[in-house]
């Protein structure tokens, strides 16, 4: 059961080996992995939209979609048909080529990230030695296409959204990369597979002081990275219509959503890989553990969406530069100390340093609430 998908692939390859030349087997192997990801990505996206609507509905004491099919399970298909048949509107003054290119290309990095996600034991499309670097590089290219879409639309709301997106990405990319460094220090490899293997048993990194802080840092920056609430300033509906996708309709709009939801999934998957032990876990098959952890994180993201209002731009920037960045730097130092000391001592020392730094950062970042002003003369009897 653990290796069911790997076994299926090998069975297909063995069957093909009987009548195909050897060099095609490698191609076929690649083709199978690519097909699996190319099917899995969009289907995940479709059902994440349904899941999000259901969860947010329940959070607001509504039912959510339940009309199309049993439990509304066919709702994504109905939405897909709707999106495909809608009119595709291109503004008269838009840069037609870039306007067309942006939504098409934005899906590619989102899909490519799936290649390095270890879905289970031995279930990774390519075990790149620079897996995490690959993920970071690709996830930040999404921003370029968001800005291309914003610029090509020739619309002030789009442009504002795109510029917000750039500002946000630049700010959050730094604590994001720095929060991964502790894991790389401990594991000594960029490969996602070896990171998961380093957390065998229940030695997940989240159970260590630096791992817990790193997990929070990486998860929060990840939420910001995929433009989800409360960090959804680039598409703030109540302020700038729809941000960078104001001028998009029909399937192009759906492609932006596809990219966003696939990024949501892959960020959750990478967080699970880095800090929650990936597919490591007792009793259940490895890929079930992976999906449990990933969907738990996705649930938290949707829970955020159902709860928190959007941040203000200065709050967003302040949070990144004044809280997350120093904490990420301290976390790297703490990880070095963790590696130097022996087991009982390093827990105490790292916990103490992190607690101290958190307190200091908390006190420094505490917003100054002015005292209630009392007008002496106005209320004088």
């Amino acid at each position, binding site marked *: 059961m653990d290796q069911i998908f790997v076994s299926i692939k090998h069975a297909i390859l063995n069957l093909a080996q009987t009548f195909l030349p050897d060099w095609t087997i490698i191609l076929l192997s690649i083709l199978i992995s690519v097909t699996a990801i190319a099917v899995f990505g969009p289907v995940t996206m479709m059902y994440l939209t349904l899941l999000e609507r259901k969860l947010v509905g329940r959070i607001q004491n509504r039912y959510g979609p339940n009309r199309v099919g049993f439990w509304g399970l066919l709702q994504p298909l109905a939405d897909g048909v709707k999106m495909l048949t809608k009119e595709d509107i291109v503004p008269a003054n838009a840069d037609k080529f870039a306007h067309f290119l942006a939504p098409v290309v934005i899906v590619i990095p989102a899909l490519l990230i799936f290649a390095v996600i270890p879905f289970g034991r031995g279930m990774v499309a390519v075990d790149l030695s620079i897996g995490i670097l690959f993920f970071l590089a690709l996830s930040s290219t999404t921003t370029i296409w968001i800005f291309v879409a914003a610029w090509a639309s020739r619309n002030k709301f789009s442009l504002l959204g795109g510029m917000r997106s750039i500002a946000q990405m630049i700010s959050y990319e730094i604590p994001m990369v720095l929060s991964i460094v502790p894991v790389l220090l401990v594991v000594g490899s960029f490969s996602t597979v070896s990171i998961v293997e380093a957390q065998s048993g229940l030695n997940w990194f989240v159970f260590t002081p630096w791992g817990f802080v790193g997990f929070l840092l990486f998860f929060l920056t990840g939420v910001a990275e995929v433009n989800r609430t409360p960090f959804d300033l680039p598409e703030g509906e109540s302020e700038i219509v729809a941000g960078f996708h104001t001028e998009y309709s029909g399937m192009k709009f759906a492609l932006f959503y596809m990219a966003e939801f696939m990024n949501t999934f892959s960020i959750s998957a990478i967080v699970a890989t880095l800090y929650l032990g990936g597919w490591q876990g007792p009793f259940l098959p490895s890929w079930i553990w992976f999906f449990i952890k990933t969907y738990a994180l996705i649930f938290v993201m949707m*829970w955020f969406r*159902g709860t928190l209002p959007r941040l203000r731009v200065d709050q967003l920037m302040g949070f990144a530069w004044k809280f997350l960045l120093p904490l990420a730097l301290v976390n790297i130092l703490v990880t070095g100390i963790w590696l130097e000391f022996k087991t009982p001592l390093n827990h105490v020392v790292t916990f103490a340093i992190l607690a101290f730094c958190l307190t200091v950062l908390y006190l420094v970042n505490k917003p100054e609430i002015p005292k209630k002003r009392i007008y002496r003369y106005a209320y004088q009897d």
Partner: protein
Amino acid sequence: MFFGFGVLKGMTVTFKNFVLSYFSKERLTTVQYPEERLPEKERFRNFPFLIYDNKPEDLRCVSCDICAKECPPKCITIVRDSDEAGKPLKRPKVFDIDFSICMNCGICEEVCPFDAIFMDHEFELAEYGRFEDLNYHKDDLLKSNEYFAKIRPHDAAEVDARLAEKAKKEAAAKTVAPPAVPPQPPQPQQN
């Protein structure tokens, strides 16, 4: 409380909503319309209907054309019926109400001196055609007095009492006192 406590409090509230909405029915205020319905309110009024007393032939409408004249969007069309000799009869030949024009104001009910037209509770009136499908003819509009008593019992009791009193008075006038003075023209009943 400490900084960030408000966020945690909000998260607790939404999580409580999320979990409890699966268990307590009271939290979900949505009425799943085609399967579940809210109970009808008696005073609810929508499209008008024509009332008849015992059988569909003797409807109360005398084709006086008051409702058609009073109707603000002019959605009522009435053509008076006549016998072979061309003598006009006290019943409509054509009574059409165009639902695509009707605005459900209920003025027809208020002005009718013969208590012949009343507002209905029917609201699922969607049709595929815009013109002829929404134009309701006399046969579509006819509904019995029992139906009226069922949907609006208070109004029906009041109307029935008034009509019974009127009938009794007429009967008494016919039997006891032959008209010394010419009979008064029927006063329009104020509803």
